């Protein structure tokens, strides 16, 4: 093999290698990721029928927790789960049908209003929407 051929081969080979190291990320990028799409303003909280009446579920709403409640009458309610007192995560208490915060026992009614305890402001209520088999929660306009 003469020098010229060597240089050409070397050039071709390294070119292929470089192109490969560029193409590999691009191809991996194009393949659909596990989580199909970005979380948008509307967040899928649960599936229809997942929650029994008079129970609730905590889910991720953007970067903070939120609460989806299925009341005993079967109405779906959505609230931020961040307590307005010192940002602990609130829970739904089925025997009293209220939302309570275990940190300092702040208590909210099902309109988000403070019934007792230290929270200074009501819980922000969210819009709940059922689309097909999915329950979506989004911020109120």
């Amino acid at each position: 093999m003469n020098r010229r051929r060597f240089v050409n081969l070397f050039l071709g080979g390294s070119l292929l290698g470089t192109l490969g190291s560029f193409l590999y990320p691009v191809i991996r990028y194009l393949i659909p990721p596990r989580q199909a799409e970005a979380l948008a303003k509307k967040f899928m909280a649960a599936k229809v029928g997942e929650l029994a009446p008079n129970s609730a579920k905590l889910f991720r709403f953007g970067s903070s927790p939120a609460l989806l409640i299925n009341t005993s009458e079967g109405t779906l309610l959505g609230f931020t789960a961040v307590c307005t007192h010192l940002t602990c995560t609130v829970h739904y208490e089925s025997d009293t049908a209220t939302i309570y915060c275990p940190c300092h026992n702040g208590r909210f009614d099902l309109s988000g209003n403070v019934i007792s305890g230290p929270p200074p402001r009501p819980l922000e209520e969210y819009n709940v929407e059922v689309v097909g088999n999915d329950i979506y929660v989004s911020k109120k306009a």
Partner: protein
Amino acid sequence: MSAFFKNMLSYLNPRFRLSALAEFAKKKKIPEHKHSFWYYFGGLCLFLFGIQVLTGILLLLYYTPSVDAAHESVLYIMSQVKFGWLIRSVHSWTANILIGAIFVHMFSTFFLKAYRPPRDLTWVSGFFLLILFLAFGFSGYLLPWNELSFFATRVGTDIAGTIPLIGNAVKTFILGGPEVSGATLGRFFWLHVAVLPAFALLVLGVHVFLVQILGLSKPIGITDSKEISFFPNFVLKDALGWLLVLTAIGVICVFSPWEVGQKADPFAPTPVGIKPEWYFTFLFTTLKLVPAHIFSVEGEVLAILSFMLGGLLWLLVSYLDRRAGREMKSPVFSFVGFVIVLYIVVLTALTYLVPRI
């Protein structure tokens, strides 16, 4: 292997008149002298633009230009999509590097007086490319819809609004309304991925074509007649430079990925020390430093008009610099250019070193 290439070439040649192209390429020569280093920056800008188009197209696959989803889609690209962090970081970093390279390219052609006729149209088209790419930078910056970009856009368009007579109309047109909103995001997206690329390709086509047929300008007073052939020598050296820059971009992106930031909240107060991207800071800081009133005219308005006048003069420098047109040294223009560079550098530095101006 080489037989395969030979066969392919003989198939394409009669169909694309490749041999004519090859002849031209073989004949094209590049002057080689002590300032030849600066010749590479034009090609570098082209290369970086190519990277932007490629990474931009890839980002388009997962990005959503709506207020509810823009930030989330960028977060998604950075965290869920394989190598999304790389594609996005390359795009954001290269945008800044490209604009830096454009400035270097522009000032090097200025100081080497490459704008003198018959290359005046190359200079003019280059000026428009500068405007287009600054618009690319400004419009692209808003798309992630984070706090910094939202407020930087607001500050920038506020400045546009102070242009006398047409300011408010211009601002409303740019924003798609009275203030930065979802309409602005849609509009900037439209500009960034459709309008500006179309115009850029057009003007770039003209610019590159002119460079190719006119050849590279030799600075005044250079008597060296040494030349190298464009293809393959210059092209290979060009490619070497491109590879080095590419490596640098790769290193930057791995060790300092572009941040996602906090989602923009239009109702939040403007963060302290908000400023536009670095390439606009010299304009921004000038406006901050200018006194409120100069001879009963609003200082800001006067400053903006001065910048616009300056831009106009810059555009027309090919025609203003008569001495250069006659192949004579024109130190006055070089001096003015030096002052402008100093001004930009000092004001940009001031913005970051003395934030509480």
